[in-house]
């Protein structure tokens, strides 16, 4: 199945649009359905599709394991760090109001940063899970 050119071409064509759709879902979450989780899963799906068609090794070249692990941690750091930033600016944990002068701007900014953290972690974990399962070598 992997050698079928139709799959290869279709997956290559789809790769970009899926990621763009993922980014749209990520940053449009304030206005329509969507947000970090869904976006993370969608972007991960693009990479999973690539791995499924071109093989796990190719997929790992595209997104090495150390990047996946770092992005996983980075997402948590971005989300948790936002809370620390609020504390340093003199508000309660995860209070976005000190981020900007106008309350709605602050709220938008806070939500975008936080959703970005969610998206990064979910993306990396979902891809990491797939790689771990697909690349598992049972001991004989």
């Amino acid at each position, binding site marked *: 199945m992997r050698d079928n050119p139709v799959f290869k071409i279709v997956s290559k064509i789809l790769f970009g649009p899926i990621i763009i759709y993922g980014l749209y879902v990520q940053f449009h979450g304030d206005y329509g359905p969507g947000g970090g989780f869904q976006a993370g899963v969608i972007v991960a799906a693009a990479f999973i599709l690539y791995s499924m068609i071109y093989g796990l090794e190719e997929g790992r070249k595209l997104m090495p394991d150390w990047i996946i*692990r*770092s992005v*996983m*941690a*980075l997402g*948590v*750091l971005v989300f*948790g*760090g936002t*809370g*620390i930033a609020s*504390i*340093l600016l*003199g*508000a*309660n*944990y*995860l*209070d*976005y*109001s000190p981020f900007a002068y106008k309350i709605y701007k602050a709220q938008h900014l806070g939500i975008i940063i936080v959703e970005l953290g969610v998206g990064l972690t979910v993306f990396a974990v979902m891809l990491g899970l797939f790689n771990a399962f697909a690349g598992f070598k049972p001991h004989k």
Partner: protein
Amino acid sequence: MLILDNIPALLVAIPLLASAVVSLLPSARIAWGFAFFTTLICLYMAFELVGIISSTQALSYAFGGWEPPWGIVFVLDSANVYLVLLVAFVSVIATLYAYTMLAREIAVEDLPKAYAVWLLAIASLFGLAMTGDAFNLFVFLEISALSSITLIALGAGQDRRALLAAYNYLIIGAIGATFYVIGVGYLYAATGSLNLIDITDRLNELGTNQAAITGLAFMLAGIMVKAGVFPVHIWLPAAYSYAPSAVSSLLAAVATKVAIYYFARLLFGIFIDITQLVDFFLLYILMPVSVLAIFYGTIAAIYQSDFKRLFALSSIAQIGYITFAFSLNSHSGISAGFIHIINHALIKGALFMAVGIFALGIGSRATMSSMQGVGRQMPITFAGFVLAGLALIGVPLTAGFISKLYLFKAIFETGNGFYVALIALSSVLSVLYLWKIFEVMWLKEPVQPLKIDKEPASAYLPVWLMVGVIMIFGVYSGEVISSGIGAANALIGAR
């Protein structure tokens, strides 16, 4: 000032962020150092928190600045501030112990990630102890469950049965958590709120109905699974006995205790309006179940030859003592329960740590036949182990005595001699299994040379730190007793 105001949030946030960093560190040693430093910071913050609570009585921390029914709050009063301190203290000691012990049971490459998961487990325990929001509790419950399961499964490096124990915990824990979520759903439908204090107010306002009561029942059932209360304890013995020793000592010491605290909070704090039902539950369900737990755990421990499993079974009995104290439904009963939560956490932590060192010494699982004479070969650890064992029975001058004393005091208040006899009998039975261990380890000749040259100081030092605290609390028990009484005051008022 910035820090002091935000301690409740930082207690959870700092270990969480630290775990993200630790998971990326290349060296096991640096990862351990980072984790240990984090737990020290948490201990410092916990001490600060105790200071704040002793002057202000209660504290409510609103996340994102959103006031209670709309946002998530952490609630601190004299009922849980000592629990937070306990978790912080035990996590420091257990991390210290992990330096030697975890490295021997887990591959070096995995250690940084293991320490990251370890920190997540600690952070979730802080969250569980402080949260005042019913759904937020579920989230922490799941972080705690997933991180514990990972750590337990790592015991499969030594014994493949750890995998089965972890899987069982996952399934049973998930059923428990889902029951809890169902309960929260019913309660939310009945009251429209998720904040525990607000739920109480709303129930007083709207009146309770069948839905709210069922909701409470399911929440309690879910929590009981996590707390290892008798009929739903089935995941506990295997999970504690096959986990790496450092993990067993951390989990056995504090993981169930936090769930029990929350169990008490739900029972005594939330449903003021339906006292009759709570009374019924305590007297006709919780009390018989606790007595069963005490005898089941103790008798099963007598017939058990695997040390870790034996102490896990004894944990079920000890949890039985705590729930029994709660079921007396009196001020002194609740204080006795909280005193025993603290003392038992220290005692069981020390015992599991010591057993881990013995197992390391002989290079295989610690069982009645493999442990012959090991006490003579490892005298320093064994001495600490014996003292902790005496505390478990409740010998005077140890912390365990204080627990038993207050338990008996609470029972005498009810004037029921039958209970006194029951508890006394169970204490005598617990002497049996501890004597069996002592006999095997000290009175028999050693059968094989140790696998290690001498007892590792970094491993027995934590045991002795715990034992030291147990002995101090046995003599200068004022702080522990006042914490128990403070907890009872916070939950049911100063009756």
